[in-house]
């Protein structure tokens, strides 16, 4: 836990650039719907805060993501045209993924400034706590989403994880 959080390598970052927003939004939307439906307690746990709009700003990616838990939507936006939001969370993609997968503690990431929060802090706290309880597994969700491609995609993610240092699956051993 003492190693610095990885930043997305430049090659990967550039590779992400030309990805058009619309297909990306579709994929994110499908993923968010799937996760919300598989983990209904996540939205319940957030209470009224589920109706907030969260701007997720992975600073090493070219886009911003707008999450609306109540509506089960997530859309991608250009940095040049940021959408309106109730709260903004900024940090390297690896910090988001590590927090999501229980590899890092959200509070520790905030204290160390790996993640920065603006706007409705209480809503961010609710989102963080609800995600932590849901024990999400991005790799599993992606694999489940893609049906017949599950096996190959999982392999690709594991390779990406090793290459990039990102946490793409749930950490069952926290040590």
């Amino acid at each position, binding site marked *: 836990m003492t190693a610095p959080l990885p930043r997305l390598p430049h090659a990967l970052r550039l590779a992400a650039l030309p990805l058009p927003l619309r297909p990306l939004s579709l994929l994110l939307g499908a993923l968010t719907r799937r996760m919300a439906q598989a983990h209904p307690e996540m939205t319940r746990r957030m209470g009224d805060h589920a109706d907030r709009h969260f701007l997720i700003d992975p600073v090493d990616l070219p886009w911003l993501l707008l999450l609306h838990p109540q509506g089960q939507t997530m859309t991608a936006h250009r940095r040049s045209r940021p959408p309106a939001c109730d709260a903004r969370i900024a940090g390297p993609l690896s910090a988001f993924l590590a927090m999501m997968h229980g590899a*890092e503690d959200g509070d520790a990431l905030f204290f160390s400034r790996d993640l920065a929060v603006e706007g409705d802090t209480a809503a961010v706290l609710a989102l963080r*706590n609800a995600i932590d309880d849901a024990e999400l597994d991005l790799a599993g969700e992606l694999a489940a989403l893609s049906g017949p491609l599950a096996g190959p995609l999982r392999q690709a993610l594991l390779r990406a994880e090793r290459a990039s240092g990102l946490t793409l699956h749930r950490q069952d051993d926290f040590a």
Partner: protein
Amino acid sequence: MMELVCPAGTPAALRAAVEAGAHAVYCGFADETNARNFPGLNFTPEDMAEGVRFAHARGAKVLVAINTFPRAGAEPLWHRALAHAEAAGVDAVILADLGLLAHAAEHHPGLRRHLSVQAAAANPDAINLYASAFGVRRVVLPRVLTVEEIAAINREIDVETEVFVFGGLCVMAEGRCSLSSYATGKSPNMNGVCSPASHVAYAEEGNDLAARLGGFTIHRTARTAPAPYPTLCKGCFTSGPQTGHIFEDPVSLDATHLIPRLAGAGVRALKIEGRQRSRAYVAQVVRAFRAAVEAQAAGRPLPESQLARLAEGQKATTGAYAKTWR
């Protein structure tokens, strides 16, 4: 072996704590009846019953904190929490309010009662009063005492004592502080929150990040420096010619190396703060402390603490346990 009492803000954290070696887990219902009433945290009565089944199947206990002070005219909410806890089969409830203790002793006599740190029972007279009046079996000592004072207290009382060893640190006598509600209207005693996130605003101003609570500036940090959460008593203020952390530095408690002395002082249980922290945090801290209490019980040297990075502000103190803190 000393009992390790570990925090669980969510069912996932409860499972993580039990699997990491917690002897007991403490948690609360998702409302203002417990002192960590934070957005997205805590248990429904169904979550609680499920958590108790999970913990009991693995030999761990579940303690339920109902440790705010019931609002006048709304006591039934707190009374229902007691009934839900008993129905879920929990091992004890952790209470602070006189009226709620009296209600529990009368209506739930079989439900073991612990005295919350929020009751601030800081001397043997107070502890013996709670023991004789309400049948309290264990007291969580306020974080205002030195190890020597804890030993002296244990010589004068018959109930078990539990002390905090890791995590957030109150500098004020717990349960007797309304700093938070002075700035925000929400307090630990009434609402189960201190310096609530709903009243926190961060603003980037020049090269600074200002953190405000209810409109009051709690600290300013350089944009790139670590930024502690704006907890009121850990803020940076000005008094006369001095500017600094007038009440407490943004540190957290780590009393790992005091475990042998706390055992010698007659302490029965060690408590880890942090129901608002993630399951990742809980698992790491619990695992480290389980190793420490096992080493202590076996008379082996304690393992080096690896927990610094998880600490608030990433600095640790032994707090009031050392007299110089005062």
